[in-house]
């Protein structure tokens, strides 16, 4: 799905991170973790083809990243603050299909049917006729995911989709993503700060440690030394008798 060969990320004159060499298997659910400002959003921007690698080579779904790649769906950070009072949720999802079309064209019935289908899939059909500003954070996140999914991508990038959600909504979104992944085979890359709600579904994680991105399987990620190092504060990994795994600050 992703192949990084000695990739570095440069913004302006500063190198955000460098020496990224790793491969992420196709169809995986992968967390992107790292402290604030470590370059997680920058990583997504690069996969989207909006920022060229400062050096090295990057392949996304077998190709050099390029803007407007229909095979990638994207949910940006702070999505809720973007969408406002002036559009219905449904029309926002529709723009995911028609927003790149120039000229006077009617929305086709196939396009409408696709929007209905994806709204049902993410459980947003009931409130899709409301304006974005009239939805709760969890509902807005579902709409954002619907918009990213509507073009049938092979890879979904989500930047902090669990931020500002309560535990139940976090769990609902995680369940939704797992279903999308297993039913449609869509690879998922999501930026998160707390691994706990995801531990049961993650295949692995890209972690930004000391300015260098790495990829590891989930078992290796969930180590106290690594997490403690990553966040600069003591983290404990706890395994319950039921086999559930979670992390907490020590």
């Amino acid at each position, binding site marked *: 799905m992703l192949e990084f060969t000695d990739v570095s990320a440069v913004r302006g004159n500063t190198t955000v991170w460098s020496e990224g060499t790793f491969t992420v298997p196709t169809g995986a659910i992968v967390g992107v973790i790292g402290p604030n400002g470590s370059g997680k959003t920058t990583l997504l921007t690069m996969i*989207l*083809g*909006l920022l060229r690698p400062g050096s090295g080579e990057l392949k996304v779904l077998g190709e050099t990243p390029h*803007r*407007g790649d229909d095979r*990638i769906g*994207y*949910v*940006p950070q702070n999505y809720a603050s*973007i*969408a*406002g*009072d*002036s*559009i*219905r949720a449904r*029309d*926002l999802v529709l*723009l*995911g299909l*028609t*927003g*790149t*079309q*120039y*000229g*006077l064209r009617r929305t086709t019935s196939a396009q409408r049917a696709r929007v209905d289908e994806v709204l049902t899939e993410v459980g947003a059909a009931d*409130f899709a*006729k*409301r*304006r974005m500003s*009239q*939805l*709760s*954070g*969890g*509902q807005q*996140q*579902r709409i954002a995911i619907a*918009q*990213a999914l509507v073009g049938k991508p092979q890879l979904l990038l989500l930047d902090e989709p669990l931020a500002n*959600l*309560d535990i*139940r*909504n976090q769990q*609902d*979104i995680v369940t939704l993503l797992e279903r999308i992944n297993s039913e449609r085979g869509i690879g998922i890359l999501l930026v998160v700060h707390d691994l706990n709600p995801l531990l049961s579904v993650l295949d692995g994680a890209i972690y930004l440690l000391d300015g260098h991105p790495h990829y590891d399987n989930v078992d290796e990620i969930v180590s106290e030394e690594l997490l403690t190092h990553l966040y600069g504060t003591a983290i404990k990994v706890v395994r319950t008798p039921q086999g559930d795994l979670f992390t907490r600050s020590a």
Partner: protein
Amino acid sequence: MDIIAVVKFQSNWMEILASPFMRTALIAGILVAIASGLIGYFVIVRGSMFASHALAHIGFPGATGAALVGTSVLTGLVVFTVVGALAIGLLGKKANDREIATGTVLAFATGLGVLFASLASENTSTVTNILFGNLLAIPSSQLVVFAGFLAVLIVVLLVIFRPLLFASIDPPVAEAKGVPVKGLGITFMILLALVVSMAVTVVGVLLIFALLVTPAAAALRFTARPGWVIFWSSAIGVASVAVGLTIAAMINLPPSFFIVSTVFVIWLVAVATRREGRVQVPVGGHG
């Protein structure tokens, strides 16, 4: 006594309305109202309310300076607002910096406008017309220009409608999808400059908000579907121009006040009315 002498009902107002200069005013007003309605939704969605206000002020020295060099007020307006639009558009994303820069230029431009006005020893009614608008002062020769602007606006909007909407509402995703967000932003600003130039002749630099933003804001109370918002804001603008002109004919006062008042009343009613689709979001609602 004085006031009553000025405000006098004219029983022949139907004749006045039918006169050629009133017809020119009505057609000009309708063209401008439609143009404003077409762009108003995008002004709100993009959060360009301040930019549109600023463009009108940037047009002010253009309008007063036009007299200085002996060209038409509209030409001066278009030149200054288009240059201003390009500058604001190129300032790009950083909203805070942009607002400060825009506001600073706005103040400077207004000062420049006052200077030009006094240098040209314009009579005060010309300056008043620029500041507050006067539909009755629009020469009939300008109708063709207005119609041309409106045609350009319609054609360009039809072509870029969806990408512009996408780029306005959801810039990061639009950008990732390959939509030229910045280019569309600059195109939008130039269209806005044309509409502002037209609207200044109707309601003036100071009342521009009433024609450019308020009708769309009122329409948005009832619907959030882009096509309908555009339709209703144009309709509100056209109705306000027609009502304003009629009242102006009845009591022989400049139409700007009545146009702006009609828009204001419609907006008040819209705000007071139940909002379409308002649903209480349950606290901690199941997402």
